[in-house]
C-alpha cells in the first residue's frame, strides 16, 4: 500500500452510513408509535390530543432524511447545506404550528415561515459545488421571502379562514383588520409569488453544474408556490390546507432526495478517484474497467502530447474528460464515462491525489522522453547499418569484382610473358589476392544472409569462427524468433568483443555464452587475459547500439584479472 493510498483513505465519507441506518430505524419506530397512539392518517389534522403534524411518521422520516442530506453536503457545498437547512426549518416550522402548547403569536409566526423556503431553495441550488451564486437575485429572493413571511404573519387570521382547521386560537392579524382576510392573504400571496419568481430566476441564472439539483430546485419552488396559492384559490375549502401541506412536503422531499442522490454520486466519484490514485501510485497503468474514470493521461513535453502512465502515446480525444492544469496548460487528463461530471471529478481530487498524479506525470514524461530518445538512437543505428550495407554491397559489386577480374587477366597474361615480367605479374597477382582477402574481412554482408537463412546460432558460429581464437561456446537459444535488430546488435557486440580479446587480451582463449532465457537476449564474452580494458570506439559503439534497443551493457575488466563483457537486450514479446 502506498502512503498516498493511506492519505486518501483518511478522508471523511460524504454520506454517513451509520446515520442513514439510524434514520431508517427511527422512522420505522416512529411510524409504528404514531399509528398505535393516534390511529390517524398522516398529515391529517391531529387536534389537541394527538401529535403535531411535524411528528407524524412520514414527516419524521423526511426530517431525518433532511438532516442526513444536509450533513452529507455540508463539507462539499456549505452554502447548499445552509440553503437546505433554511428550507427544512421553514417546512418544519409550518408543520409544528398545530402544536397546542404554543402561544397564538408563535403559531402565527411559525405558519408564516413558509415563504422562507424559496430563499432556502435558491441558496441550495445557487451554492451547489463552488459555483458563484448570482448574488443580486439571491438577495432579491431573500428580501422578498422575508417580506412575504412578514405579510403572512401579520395578515393571516386562521379563524377568519373558513378552510383552516389547524389552529384554535386567535392570532394577531393587524393587516386583516385593515384590508380584510382574503385581501391580506392575497397581498401575502403576491409577495410569495414574487419570492418564487426571484428564486427561479436565481436558479436559472446561477447555471449550477448539477442538472438534477437544478431541476429539483425548480420543482420544489413550483410545488411550494402551489402550496401558497391553494388556500387563497380554494377559499373556504377544508381540504385545501391539507393539500397545501402535502405540496410543501413533496417539494421538500424532492429537493432532499436530489441532494442526497447527488451526494451519493459525489461519494462514488471520490471513491473512484481514490482507487485511481492508488492504482497510479502503485504504477498499475491499465485502463479502469469500472467507475467514473476510464483512464488517466498525462501531457508531456515538448509538444504537450498525451501519453499513458507508461509513456505510450494516446491517440484521439476522449468524449468526456476532466483536466488538471499547471502554468504550461493542461497536465493531466482523466478520461471519464459519459455520465460523470468533469467539474465534480476535478473538485473531488484531493491535494494528496494531485501530488500522486503530478508524480505519475513526471514519470510518464521521463518514460516518453526516454522512448523517443531510444527511438531516435535506433533510427541512427539503423541508418548507419543501412549505409554500411550499401557500402558493402558497392564494395562487393564494384571493387571486389573488378579485383577478381584483374586477377583473372593477370592469370591469363602470366604464362605468355617473358621471364623478366613474369615475376612482376606474379607479385601483382599475390597483391590482388591480399586485397581481396582484406576486403572480405571488412565485409559483414555474408553474416546478414546467414542470419536471415540459418538463424542466430549459425551466425554466432560464423562470427566465432572468423575470430581466429579458441572459443568455448555455450549457445542455448530457444528458437523463438528474435527481432532482427536485436540479433544484429548481439552479433555486432560478439564480433567487437572477440576482436578486443584477440587484439588486447594477450590470450587466444575466450568463453562465449549466448541464450534467450526469460525473453532477454543474453550474451557474455569472457577471457582470462590482461584485463584493464576500457571503452574504445568499438565498445562505445556496441554500448550505444545496445542501449538504443533498451538493453544493458556491462564491461568488467580489472588489470590482471581478465575481461568480461555482458550484454542483455529484452526481446519485445
Amino acid at each position, binding site marked *: 500500500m502506498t502512503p498516498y493510498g493511506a492519505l486518501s483513505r483518511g478522508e471523511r465519507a460524504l454520506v454517513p452510513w451509520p446515520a442513514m441506518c439510524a434514520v431508517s430505524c427511527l422512522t420505522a419506530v416512529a411510524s409504528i408509535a404514531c399509528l398505535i397512539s393516534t390511529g390517524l392518517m398522516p398529515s391529517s389534522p391531529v387536534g389537541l390530543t394527538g401529535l403535531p403534524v411535524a411528528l407524524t411518521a412520514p414527516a419524521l422520516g423526511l426530517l431525518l432524511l433532511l438532516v442526513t442530506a444536509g450533513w452529507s453536503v455540508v463539507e462539499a457545498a456549505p452554502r447548499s447545506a445552509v440553503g437546505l437547512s433554511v428550507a427544512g426549518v421553514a417546512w418544519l416550522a409550518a408543520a409544528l404550528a398545530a402544536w397546542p402548547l404554543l402561544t397564538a403569536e408563535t403559531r402565527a409566526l411559525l405558519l408564516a415561515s413558509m415563504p422562507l423556503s424559496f430563499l432556502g431553495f435558491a441558496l441550495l441550488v445557487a451554492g451547489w459545488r463552488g459555483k458563484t451564486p448570482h448574488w443580486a437575485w439571491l438577495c432579491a429572493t431573500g428580501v422578498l421571502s422575508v417580506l412575504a413571511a412578514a405579510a403572512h404573519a401579520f395578515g393571516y387570521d386562521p379563524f377568519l379562514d373558513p378552510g383552516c382547521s389547524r389552529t384554535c386560537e386567535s392570532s394577531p392579524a393587524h393587516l386583516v383588520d385593515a384590508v380584510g382576510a382574503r385581501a391580506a392573504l392575497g397581498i401575502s400571496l403576491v409577495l410569495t409569488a414574487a419570492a418564487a419568481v426571484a428564486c427561479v430566476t436565481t436558479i436559472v441564472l446561477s447555471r449550477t453544474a448539477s442538472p438534477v439539483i437544478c431541476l429539483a430546485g425548480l420543482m420544489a419552488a413550483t410545488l411550494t408556490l402551489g402550496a401558497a396559492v391553494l388556500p387563497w384559490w380554494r377559499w373556504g375549502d377544508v381540504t385545501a390546507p391539507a393539500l397545501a401541506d402535502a405540496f410543501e412536503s413533496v417539494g421538500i422531499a424532492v429537493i432532499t432526495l436530489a441532494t442526497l442522490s447527488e451526494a451519493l454520486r459525489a461519494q462514488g466519484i471520490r471513491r473512484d478517484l481514490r482507487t485511481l490514485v492508488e492504482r497510479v501510485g502503485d504504477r498499475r497503468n491499465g485502463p479502469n474497467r469500472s467507475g467514473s474514470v476510464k483512464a488517466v493521461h498525462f501531457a508531456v513535453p515538448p509538444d504537450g502530447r498525451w501519453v499513458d502512465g507508461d509513456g505510450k502515446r494516446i491517440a484521439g480525444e476522449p468524449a468526456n474528460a476532466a483536466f488538471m492544469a499547471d502554468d504550461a496548460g493542461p497536465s493531466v487528463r482523466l478520461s471519464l464515462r459519459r455520465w460523470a461530471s468533469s467539474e465534480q471529478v476535478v473538485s473531488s481530487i484531493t491535494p494528496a491525489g494531485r501530488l500522486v498524479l503530478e508524480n505519475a506525470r513526471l514519470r510518464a514524461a521521463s518514460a516518453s522522453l526516454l522512448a523517443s530518445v531510444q527511438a531516435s538512437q535506433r533510427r541512427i543505428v539503423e541508418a548507419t547499418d543501412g549505409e554500411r550495407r550499401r557500402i558493402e554491397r558497392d564494395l562487393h559489386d564494384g571493387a571486389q*569484382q573488378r579485383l577478381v577480374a584483374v586477377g583473372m587477366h593477370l592469370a591469363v597474361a602470366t604464362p605468355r610473358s617473358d621471364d623478366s615480367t613474369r615475376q612482376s605479374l606474379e607479385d601483382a597477382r599475390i597483391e590482388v589476392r591480399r586485397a581481396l582477402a582484406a576486403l572480405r574481412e571488412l565485409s559483414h554482408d*555474408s553474416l546478414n544472409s546467414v542470419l536471415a537463412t540459418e538463424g542466430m546460432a549459425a551466425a554466432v558460429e560464423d562470427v566465432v569462427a572468423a575470430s581466429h581464437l579458441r572459443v568455448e561456446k555455450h549457445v542455448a537459444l530457444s528458437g523463438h524468433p528474435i527481432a532482427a535488430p536485436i540479433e544484429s546488435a548481439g552479433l555486432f557486440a560478439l564480433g567487437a568483443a572477440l576482436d578486443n580479446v584477440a587484439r588486447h587480451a594477450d590470450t587466444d582463449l575466450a568463453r562465449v555464452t549466448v541464450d534467450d532465457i526469460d525473453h532477454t537476449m543474453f550474451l557474455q564474452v569472457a577471457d582470462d587475459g590482461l584485463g584493464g580494458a576500457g571503452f574504445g570506439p568499438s565498445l562505445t559503439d556496441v554500448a550505444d547500439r545496445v542501449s538504443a534497443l533498451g538493453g544493458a551493457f556491462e564491461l568488467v575488466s580489472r588489470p590482471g584479472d581478465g575481461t568480461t563483457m555482458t550484454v542483455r537486450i529484452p526481446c519485445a514479446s
Partner: protein
Amino acid sequence: MRVVVADDVMIVRAGLVHLLASADVTTVGEASDSAELLRLVALEHPDVAIVDIRMPPTHTDEGLVAARTIRDRYPRTNVLLLSQYLAPRYAARLLADQPGGLGYLLKERVSDPAVLLDALERVVAGGCVVDPTIVARLLDFGHNDSPLAALSPREHQTLGLMAEGQSNAAIAHHLGIGERTVESVCGQLFRKLSLEPDPDVNRRVLAVLALLRAR
C-alpha cells in the same frame, strides 16, 4: 570440356571466359542470372556450370538454389560454385544433398588457372571440391564432441587435402610420404569416422561430409 558461366557482373564473366579460353576450355554460354543459367543448361547440356552464389534479384543464395536444381534435373552437368565469402554453411548444405559432381571455391582462387582447371576436372570426374581456405577453417573449429576431435594431426591434414579434392597420390606428394602410408592413414581415418567399406558409397565424399557437418 564444355562449360557454362553464370555471374551477374559482366567483367568477371568476361575475365573467366578469357581465362578458360586460355586453358582450352570451351565456354558454350554466359548467363547473368539463374533463370538464364537454367535455360542455357537445358539447351547446351554442358559438362560443368560455373556459378556465382550471389546473383539477382536478392543477391543472397540464388546460385545455390540454381545449383541444386541443375544437379536434380541434369545429373550430367556438374556444378562449380564460386563465392566471394567464406560461407562453409552453404557448402555443407549443398554437399549434404549432392555429394558428387560439385565444387565450392572462393572467387579469388580462380585467378590461378591451374587450380581452376584442377577443380573442373575433379568435379567432372564426380568428385567434390572444397576451397582450402574453407577446409582450413572447418578443421580449426571442429566441436570437441565431434568425431573429428579423435583424429591425429596427420589424419586432419589428409582429410583436409581430401576435401580439396586431391587423390591419394597428390596427398602423398603434398605431405612428402609414400602412397601406401596415405592409404593406411585413410583407412584409419575412415574407421575413426565409422565409415565401413561399402561398394555403394564413396567413403572419401562421406569423410568430407563429416568434416562439413562438424560445423
